């Protein structure tokens, strides 16, 4: 496509636009509004509603053409306001309204409805209707969360097109024909796309409504707060609509650097927990063995006493702090400041923190993966995923990847122990045995070098363990498949490599990260290596130093410049000895660790063993929204507020710092923001911090972290700002990547595969009534061959046993699970897979029918 702009005239205004621009968009560029229904700026045109007909001058006089489907031409002359155009607009609207039920008073869309708006603006103002309207299904549930009103539907197909063009899950279609035409699901197959709720936002009438939000708001009565999603690490932009101290709905908000305008269903629908009756509203202090309501001063004093007692008795390093990647930068920053400055220990970490070999720089950029409807193509022609499942872990990234594959020809190389959903696209799939990542990566690097035909002594030596035989036996992967994947990567112009916490945790995590780095260097794409965390603030939690071995800004503990900066900022000395990681603290709880301050984490729910350890602690304080398993064990429970109830910033996986301002509050609750709770504990311990607000904490962060310099609340705006990766990116260097042989599976043993699913049994999901049936069942999924071997059928009750523990689950049988493995996601309702784990890279389980 040529870069030269096309010049045309619309209503006597000259406009210059890129070739290929549609008339409707060119008109918008000069503030000429052309009414539309079926057309949508993010979807391919279909030109079925005929609302956008405009006059285009041609050799045979002016002709009516659909502005939504006709691209501009040089010298084109368009009129949008002639009598002829107005007559067709009026006529068209009159037609659309004929069968529309006009139940606007009870329609969620009323007040923000394009059909209403256009009827006011372009309509004839009289009704021709005399016959009864046509009746169709009005309360038709096309999924657990989406209701279709076929009477309101004007059959514009936006919903069909969204599911086809973005989700690649065409679960809605046109049925029958002519006047009988309906939009419907295929019988018995509800819409289950993980971002399907976006069709509600783009419906131009009230035909699609949200089951969790409908009848709960009027658009003109809600207060609208621009915010971000609290679930996923992509930081999808949302708008929270509230009224009378309650969230009424959450909708998507456009950010072309992050989520286009789409959000995940979990984001849109799973917010009932915010207004839940189960929320903690008052501090609790353990008295006579029971947690009992207390005042804030009682509770804060109890925390002070408990922490001081343990510190005095066992030393500062017997105290630990656990932060959370689900909480804001401000809360996490103050937690590590509290632990380092006031307690005097580096025992501060979060789940997937020090136990995972992440990258300080996250992923390069979401925009570089995106293929918007109109805009530049993605920058990557090959995307490699190592131990990452975007469909479950980051649905919007999943959407971007699918779009890149289908519209821009991006190829996927997927290394994952499970046949993840994205393996449905052509490319390369390496189904490795969990724990064998390091060897697999060495194999890829070795073969990439061979495909390139290059000599590199260092790489050859570093990767000489990854023989064909070892790939086959240790990784369980066909060496030819590895070579095929290597070839795709080598032949790529610009490959992207993403990995997740599952691939690089525990003792070999460091080796895996080295292996990834080596591979990226062999492929000349070192800067395209990215780490994708799981939570909304996985990146920010690391940025602000909730790590046992790093200060804010990813500075090592012995980094003199950072130490000096922080010492000046905070006053006093910083501890020097590395702290314990999340797992180390929990393993040592009740032993070397005597007291823990846990903020927004539930390790007791994660692993029964840790629950037992936590019960042995001298002192446990928990800042929480709910009375979690961990909170139940606490000496003091401090009620906190959610992301929607206080100001905070979150840093997404591409280092974009974004604001989540306070959108709602509960006046009956005594709960407080996490940063403020920490500020008060500090005050009780004799340290007056200078913060008046979350913005004040952010102000300090912008000083404490050089990469955040200048990025205060105002500077971030509504779209956030990315910090510059080059400020912390380590210099590229080949590093050692080795692993020992893994134990072979015994008779009847299956390698356990675990990981995250979007619809788990966690509190933030299960409290949404409408989505309860969507929660991943408490089940172990295994390959049909293994199921036959174990004498297990689909839905049988089974006992799953590891060397470490056991779980009672249902069996699910699926081809998508590799032979020799068993898949049990984390956070299943009442069935913590942690019961089977003991921190090893690989765990084997046996499955027996009950």
């Amino acid at each position, binding site marked *: 496509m040529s870069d030269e702009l096309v010049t045309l005239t619309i209503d006597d205004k000259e406009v210059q636009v890129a070739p290929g621009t549609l008339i409707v968009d060119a008109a918008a560029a000069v503030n000429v509004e052309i009414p539309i229904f079926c057309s949508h700026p993010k979807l391919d*045109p279909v030109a079925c*509603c005929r609302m956008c007909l405009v006059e285009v001058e041609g050799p045979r006089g002016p002709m009516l053409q659909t502005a939504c489907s006709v691209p501009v031409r040089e010298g084109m002359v368009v009129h949008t306001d002639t009598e002829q155009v107005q007559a*067709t607009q009026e006529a068209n609207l009159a037609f659309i309204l004929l069968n529309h039920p006009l139940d606007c008073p009870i329609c969620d869309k009323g007040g923000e409805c394009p059909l209403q708006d256009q009827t006011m603006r372009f309509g004839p103002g009289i009704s021709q209707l005399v016959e009864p309207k046509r009746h169709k299904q009005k309360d038709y549930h096309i999924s657990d969360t989406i209701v279709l009103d076929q009477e309101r539907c004007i059959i514009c197909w936006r919903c069909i097109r969204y599911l086809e063009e973005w989700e690649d899950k065409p679960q809605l279609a046109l049925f*029958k024909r*002519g*006047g009988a035409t309906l939009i419907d699901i295929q019988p018995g197959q509800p819409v289950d796309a993980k971002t399907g709720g976006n069709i509600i936002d783009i419906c131009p009438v009230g035909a699609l409504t949200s089951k969790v939000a409908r009848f709960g708001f009027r658009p003109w009565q809600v207060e609208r707060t621009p915010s971000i999603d609290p679930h996923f690490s992509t930081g999808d932009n949302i708008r929270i609509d509230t009224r009378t101290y309650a969230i009424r709905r959450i909708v998507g908000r456009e950010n072309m650097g992050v989520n286009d305008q789409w959000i995940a269903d979990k984001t849109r629908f799973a917010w009932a927990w915010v207004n839940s009756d189960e929320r903690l509203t008052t501090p609790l202090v353990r008295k006579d063995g029971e947690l009992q309501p207390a005042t804030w001063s009682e509770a804060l004093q109890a925390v002070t006493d408990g922490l001081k007692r343990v510190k005095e008795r066992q030393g500062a390093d017997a105290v630990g702090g656990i932060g959370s990647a689900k909480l804001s930068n401000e809360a996490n920053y103050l937690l590590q400041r509290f632990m380092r400055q006031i307690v005097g220990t580096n025992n501060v970490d979060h789940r997937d923190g020090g136990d995972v070999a992440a990258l300080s720089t996250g992923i390069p950029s979401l925009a570089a993966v995106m293929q918007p409807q109109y805009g530049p193509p993605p920058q990557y022609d090959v995307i490699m995923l190592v131990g990452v499942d975007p469909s479950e872990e980051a649905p919007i990234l999943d959407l971007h990847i699918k779009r890149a594959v289908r519209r821009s020809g991006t190829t996927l190389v997927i290394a994952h122990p499970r046949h993840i959903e994205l393996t449905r696209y052509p490319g390369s799939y390496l189904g490795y045995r969990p724990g064998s990542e390091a060897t697999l990566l060495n194999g890829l690097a070795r073969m990439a070098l061979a495909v390139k035909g290059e000599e590199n002594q260092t790489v050859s030596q570093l990767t000489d363990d990854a023989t064909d035989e070892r790939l086959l036996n240790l990784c369980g992967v066909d060496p030819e498949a590895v070579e095929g994947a290597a070839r795709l990567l080598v032949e790529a112009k610009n490959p992207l490599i993403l990995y997740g916490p599952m691939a690089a945790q525990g003792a070999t995590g460091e080796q895996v990260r080295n292996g990834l780095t080596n591979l990226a260097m062999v492929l000349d794409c070192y800067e395209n290596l990215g780490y994708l965390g799981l939570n909304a603030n996985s990146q920010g939690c690391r940025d602000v130093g909730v790590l046992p071995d790093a200060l804010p800004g990813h500075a090592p503990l012995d980094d003199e410049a950072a130490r000096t900066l922080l010492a000046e900022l905070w006053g006093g000395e910083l501890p020097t000895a590395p702290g314990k990681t999340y797992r180390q603290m929990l393993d040592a709880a009740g032993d070397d660790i005597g007291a823990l301050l846990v903020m927004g984490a539930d390790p007791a729910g994660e692993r029964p063993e840790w629950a037992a350890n936590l019960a042995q602690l001298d002192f446990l304080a928990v800042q929480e929204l709910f009375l979690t398993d961990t909170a139940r064990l606490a000496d003091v429970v401090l009620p906190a507020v959610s992301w929607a109830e206080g100001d905070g910033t979150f840093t997404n996986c591409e280092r974009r710092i974004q604001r989540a301002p306070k959108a709602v509050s509960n006046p009956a609750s005594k709960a407080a923001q996490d940063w403020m709770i920490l500020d008060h504990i500090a005050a009780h311990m004799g340290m007056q911090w200078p913060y008046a607000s979350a913005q004040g904490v952010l102000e300090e962060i912008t000083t404490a972290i050089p990469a955040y310099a200048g990025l205060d609340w105002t500077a971030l705006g509504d779209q956030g700002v990315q910090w510059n990766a080059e400020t912390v990116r380590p210099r590229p260097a080949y590093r050692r990547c080795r692993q020992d042989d893994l134990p072979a599976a015994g008779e009847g043993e299956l390698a356990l595969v675990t990981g995250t699913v979007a619809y788990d049994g966690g509190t933030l999901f299960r409290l949404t009534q409408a989505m309860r049936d969507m929660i991943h069942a408490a089940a172990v999924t295994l390959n049909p061959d293994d199921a036959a071997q174990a004498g297990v059928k689909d839905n049988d009750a089974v006992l799953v046993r590891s060397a470490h523990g056991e779980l009672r689950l249902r069996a699910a049988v699926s081809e998508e699970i590799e032979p020799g493995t068993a898949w049990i996601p984390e956070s299943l309702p009442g069935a913590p897979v942690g019961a089977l784990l003991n921190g090893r890279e690989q765990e084997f389980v046996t499955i027996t029918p009950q």
Partner: protein
Amino acid sequence: MSLPADQELIEQWRGEPAPLLPLLHAFHDRDGYLSDHALRLIAPALGIPLADLYGTVTFYHHFARDPRRTQDAPRVCTGPVCRLHGGEELLAALAHEGATAMPCAGRCDDPVPVLRGHEVLIGASPATMTAPPPRLPSPNPGGREECIFAEIRTPDRATLAGYERTGGYAGLTRALDEMTPQAVIRHVRESGLAGRGGAGFPTGVKWRAVADAEGQPKYVICNADEGEPGCFKDRVILDFDPHAVIEGMLIAAYATGARAGFIYLRYEYPQSQVILERAIEEAYAAGYLGEHILDSGFHFDIYIRRGAGAYICGEETALLNSLEGKHPFPRNRPPYPVTHGFEGKPTAVNNVETLAAVPQILRREPSWYQNLGLGDIAGTKIISLSGDVQRPGNYEVPFGLPLQTLLYDWAGGPLPGRTIQAATMAGLSGGFLAGDDLDVTLDEPGVRSKGSFLGAGGIMVFDDRRDMRAVTHNAIAFFAHESCGKCFPCRIGTQRLTERLNGGGPADAAAWHAEVADIAFTMKETSACGLGMAAPAVVESFVRYFPDQVAGKR
């Protein structure tokens, strides 16, 4: 013989071009209906999303989805002419067999056709139903020189031997031996041949565009989805002169550089399919189809694809979507099929009659065809004449022939004691002509000067006995039934006009007229394809010519 298994059917069609329709027909023929089980097998086999497949299947009226109403249940023609001959009564008489109504089945000269599975029966009552052979066009009553029908009355013209004996494949041989593709296109262009499916686009210009378009492979498609009520000309050509169509496609393919072609045949013509299949087989055996045709470097294959009961599939872009297994909605244009046709490749879509004329033209000089017309318009047109005239049938008329000559001299005029009240144009799409407007020459400029158009050339005659309001109501109900539902004005407008002809609308006459005019205006101005633009014509012309009948019945 045992019925083919699911997998056999799927394997038979999976690798074929345009496999969806034949695969659906295969399951439908085997089971008598399309089961959920079949759809769930077909969708993954052809890579079609399940919801899309369900939606698409429900679009076609031929496919039964209910095991109790199988494809052997009779379908009775209730087209405009068959209604005059007891179509509705026959439908009622066959109700106990689960009979359903079928829009015009293309046998208006031989009412009333009943389709039972793959068999076509004719009769006015269940007792008299027989399966007669199709009717040959009678010799040209005006003694005019013909093009398409010139040899059609030769016995065994439908066989290869008979066809060759009467000059068959001489046009192809001449093209391959003596002419470049460019020369063929020039020849056709100079002849003035234009699209006979109704649009009248110059054939040579279309072929030129396909030949020049980028992209391979290219395709030639014969549009044999003759769905326009009152049109049965394509069927007669297919039944009596199938090789002419094949030869026409071959010449089109040679001219445009196409490697493969489809004949999209409406499902109501099962006999024509048998005849065509036999002719194609003969042509392959004789080296007219396949590789190295007539020992040249030219290769061409033809596939027959059977429609499934949807008028809109005669619209060329809907036809393309239907072939591709998509929801058969018309596409937005541009791009046009000449550059983005079947599977996005350059495609020439030509009507049966157009293609049948090509071999005759290629055998001769362009001026011969030019001069067949009486006036400025080149060539001839087959008119399917039916209804209340003494000798209904297909007539090849020179462009410019007065309609009155056709009606009175050629077809014998109205039945004894009757007078002609109205005649439709372009099947139903052109609406009615009546009174003095019947004084018109049969060519587009002539018919258009009366506010109608000649189109595909179906003319249905209604004499003074007929209730024109009822005829109009049935006509607009047909368009509502066949509207695809894609564009709003057609979907809604056809319904609303039907309701207005059915006693609906404002009680006040002036308001009623204003509203009908409004609806018609919207449809004509804003519809996306010809169906919606043309559909109001029957209502408008009825209101214009028969104001008394409007008032009388309301």
